[in-house]
């Protein structure tokens, strides 16, 4: 038995505000994003894109482009179709063929029609510009309501009236398996109601706009018949799977790498045409190829978010009890289905219960094709839309009954003892204590005082309103029944010979800080220093399997997989340690009795019986004698699939002023209380909430993708699309409650998207409160000053 000098007590890691381990390379300009990758002999791609929204391609003249010095290849969509099949999608809905490059018909402005390969990026762009395309224009389908009538055209012949998903019912009385619909409960709720309020609400189109645009480098090595693809992606393993399938390369010969990724917000879940083209042409030419998206291309060709109309009817009693909700949803999904396009509005439908115990809810979902950029997951992905419709409706009820919205919501909350709560929409909420979060938000905002302040300002002639919104979202995406890619995550943990730890995770981050939070977890689990843990990610050759980072799942699902892999290694390490210490037969050296702390492994209650962590690690790789029943080494892996999603929630309160002379809105205050379950690193969680709030407030107040009636994208650059700037926001006031999730051992729920949920209804509720003096009961986002000015001056919005 060896005696050791006392060791310093290592600081607690979980729950601490620890600064990020990712940052040194990022703040010094030493990180490697996809555009920073150079391979000898690398050629560059540029795409020729449609400048009209809808039309048949009559001819493409590539002659001038192909003859330019330095141009290696020019390929049209029709030529690519010969060796590149249509792009796969990840949802079970019927879908029209969608080729990486349009072979005969263009269906949105910016759809690629041809591609150039050249020796230099400037030259590739010159050559793409030299391609001449003649179109036979077709009428552009822009208005989603008209589109459902087949007007002014049908975009895909097999989809009558442009209906991608037609009139799918959900909620109370709907049995999707049996295919039956029973209207008795919903009809009764509305028939017996004291009031019914109705409102059409628009949740408009947005451009995700990570500051790093998309990009890809594809490198096919003929000698090895292998393909390596670097892409600015949120999910390299899914990228690998899809690229392998579409290019006809065995998946064990494809390596996908997500290098440093400059933000995703959902839009980098997708595998895009440019990725497939780069891979296929690299394979054809046997040379490395790079494509980097311009910002103007990003506006046209990276998926857009949201764009869904809700026709909402809400029924209730005069005491404030909400008894029924009907929502017809019409989603404008643009020209094609991308990987998750059709599924996003189903999440809107799923979350129509909000945080309320509404006894009868009926929804109906329709998705329609238009001549616009396809939509797909954008931060929140379906849930902010559902939250917006419910929270606006609840606010309308409060206004109708002249009740405080906080009290109306409280009256209808699902109660803590009702969890797990099976909703009318088919979700099972895992845990929640909504009143607790509401109370904290009211206290932090000084709700009564704030109301007095608002009234005081109004007396001074100012147009001021308060908004309050609650939210619940579905996060931690899994189990596999809820995610077509598989609803699990993968991790491996290796204790190296030195006693340092190397771990891998399939939850490939792009700003979320998992290198820090996951190291915090393993450091605490093994009782070693944070600095002694390295987290690897984003390379399918290093991380054996994975799903990716989206749907606020990396901590709840990926973090649990990490912990499980860690537990396996720890149990084995305890056995090695026990075998090393088993000199005194009297002592209980069973693994359960072995403790890991402060770089030491000790037997509980016997501080003298100890080995250093590094010493045991070293022994495990040269185990003489090898303990019976043990293999050498300390490395293991785990797949974790939760039994259910997680349902984080929170309450946001805002104060908004509208300038009487200009109609310009200004956010004066935003108080948020969020509950994402167990928190590993509060600093990182705050950052996630700030970012989500900024995107939600951006949507409510200034951001909007606009097409004109010909399908021309009016907001095609940052000159016209209003990205929020620092001066657009007040200082956000955050707080949190902690209601652990029972569906994973960490109790974590997820926080990446939370900020986008409460913020849009919170802001619009405040705007409606401000404009109530003008008889306003609803105003659509975004809060364009011109629209507000017209209301103030007696006009229609």
């Amino acid at each position, binding site marked *: 038995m060896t005696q050791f000098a006392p060791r310093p007590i290592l600081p607690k890691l979980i729950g601490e505000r620890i*600064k*990020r381990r*990712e*940052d*040194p*390379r*990022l*703040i*010094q*300009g*030493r*990180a*490697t*994003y996809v*555009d*920073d990758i150079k391979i000898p002999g690398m050629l560059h791609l540029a795409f020729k894109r449609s400048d009209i929204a809808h039309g048949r391609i009559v001819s493409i003249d590539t002659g001038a482009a192909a003859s330019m010095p330095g141009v290696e290849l020019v390929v049209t969509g029709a030529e690519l179709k010969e060796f590149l099949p249509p792009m796969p999608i990840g949802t079970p809905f019927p879908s029209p063929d969608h080729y990486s490059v349009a072979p005969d018909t263009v269906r949105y402005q910016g759809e690629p029609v041809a591609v150039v390969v050249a020796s230099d*990026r*400037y030259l590739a762009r010159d050559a793409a510009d030299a391609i001449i395309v003649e179109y036979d224009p077709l009428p552009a389908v822009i208005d989603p309501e008209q589109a459902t009538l087949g007007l002014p055209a049908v975009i895909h012949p097999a989809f009558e009236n442009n209906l991608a998903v037609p009139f799918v019912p959900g909620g109370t009385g709907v049995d999707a398996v049996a295919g039956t619909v029973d209207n008795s409960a919903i009809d009764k709720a509305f028939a017996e109601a004291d009031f019914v309020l109705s409102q059409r609400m628009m949740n408009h189109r947005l451009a995700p*706009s*990570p*500051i*790093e*645009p998309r990009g890809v480098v594809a490198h096919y090595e003929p000698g090895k018949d292998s393909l390596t693809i670097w892409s600015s992606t949120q999910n390299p393993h899914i990228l690998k799977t899809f690229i392998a399938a579409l290019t006809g390369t065995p998946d064990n010969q494809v390596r996908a790498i997500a290098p*440093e*990724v*400059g*933000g995703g*917000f959902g839009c980098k879940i997708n595998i895009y045409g440019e990725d497939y083209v780069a891979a296929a042409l690299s394979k054809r030419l046997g040379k490395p190829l790079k494509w980097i998206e*311009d*910002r*103007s291309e990003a506006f046209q060709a990276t998926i857009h978010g949201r764009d869904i109309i809700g026709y909402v009817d809400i029924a209730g009693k005069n005491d404030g009890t909400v008894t029924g909700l009907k929502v017809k949803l019409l989603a404008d999904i643009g020209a094609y289905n991308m990987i998750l396009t059709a599924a996003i509005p189903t999440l809107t439908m799923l979350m129509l219960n909000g945080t309320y115990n509404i006894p009868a809810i009926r929804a109906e979902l329709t998705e329609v094709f238009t001549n616009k950029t396809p939509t797909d997951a954008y931060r929140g992905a379906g849930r902010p839309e559902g939250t917006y419709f419910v929270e606006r409706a609840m606010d309308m009820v409060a206004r109708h009954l002249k009740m405080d919205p906080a009290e109306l919501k409280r009256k209808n909350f699902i109660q803590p003892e009702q969890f797990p709560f099976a909703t009318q929409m088919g979700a099972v909420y895992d845990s929640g204590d909504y009143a607790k979060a509401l109370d904290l938000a009211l206290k932090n905002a000084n709700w009564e005082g704030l109301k007095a302040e608002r009234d005081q300002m109004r007396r001074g002639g100012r147009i001021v309103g308060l908004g309050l919104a609650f939210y619940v979202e579905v996060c931690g995406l899994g189990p596999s029944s809820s995610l077509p890619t598989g609803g699990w995550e993968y991790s491996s943990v290796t204790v190296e010979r030195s006693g340092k730890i190397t771990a891998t995770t399939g939850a490939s981050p*792009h*700003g*979320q*800080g998992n290198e820090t939070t996951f190291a915090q977890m393993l450091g605490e689990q093994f009782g070693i220093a944070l600095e002694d843990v390295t987290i690897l990610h984003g390379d399918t050759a290093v991380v054996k399997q994975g799903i990716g980072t989206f749907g606020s799942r990396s901590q709840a699902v990926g973090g649990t997989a990490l912990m499980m892999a860690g537990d396996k290694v720890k149990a084995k390490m305890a056995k090695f340690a026990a075998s090393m210490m088993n000199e005194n037969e009297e002592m209980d050296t069973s693994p359960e009795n072995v403790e890991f702390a402060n770089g030491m492994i000790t037997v509980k209650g016997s501080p003298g019986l100890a080995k250093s962590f590094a010493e045991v690690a070293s022994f495990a790789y040269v185990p003489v004698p090898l303990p019976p029943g043990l293999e050498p080494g300390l490395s293991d892996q785990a797949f974790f699939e939760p039994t259910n999603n997680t349902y984080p929630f929170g309450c946001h309160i805002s104060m908004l002023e509208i300038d009487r002379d200009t109609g310009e809105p200004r956010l004066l205050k935003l108080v948020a209380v969020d509950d994402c379950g167990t928190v590993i690193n509060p*600093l*990182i969680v*705050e*950052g996630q909430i*700030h*970012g*989500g*709030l*900024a*995107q939600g407030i951006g949507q409510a107040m200034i951001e909007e993708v606009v097409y004109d009636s010909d399908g021309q994208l009016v907001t095609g*650059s*940052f*000159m016209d699309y209003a*990205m929020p*700037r*620092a*001066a657009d*926001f007040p*200082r*956000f006031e955050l707080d949190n409650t902690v209601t652990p999730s029972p569906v994973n051992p960490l109790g974590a729920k997820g926080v990446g998207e939370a*900020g986008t949920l409460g913020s849009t209804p919170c802001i619009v509720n405040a705007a409606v409160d401000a404009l109530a003096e003008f008889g306003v009961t609803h105003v659509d986002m975004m809060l364009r000053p011109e629209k507000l000015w017209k209301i103030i001056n007696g006009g229609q919005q």
Partner: protein
Amino acid sequence: MTTDIPIQIVINGKVHNDVVEPRLLLVHYLRENLGLTGTHVGCDTTQCGACTVMIDGHSAKSCTIFAVQADGSNITSIEGLAPEGGLHPLQEGFWEEHGLQCGYCTPGMIMAGVDLLQENSNPSEDEIREGISGNFCRCTGYQHIVNAIQYAAKKG
């Protein structure tokens, strides 16, 4: 074809003599010709500020300047902001205050912060928010960036 033009630029203390295409953007000269990839490109209309560097002591967007226009100037990019092995107070502030997530806007944002504190060593929160309004960040909601600049201002 246009004729390539000789330029001489001091970048991060080193003199570079090159012959470049007249239309070559400064940001591409830095990134492609010199391999200084810490300076990023986030848009094509001079809005986002990811490409911000210091030119002759002031922040400038290197996507809106041709390399030939920078002939004779003295440029500092993120790689040269602090002496090797050290951190500039702004870099330190961004690390301490979690002023970044994906990191893509960060080098440009730090340069905007350097310029701001040069002009006003003790800015108010509103002045900071106004001062960095030429730079977009999509991740942070800016609050931790404001904190980072306040940290650097306090450090002096």
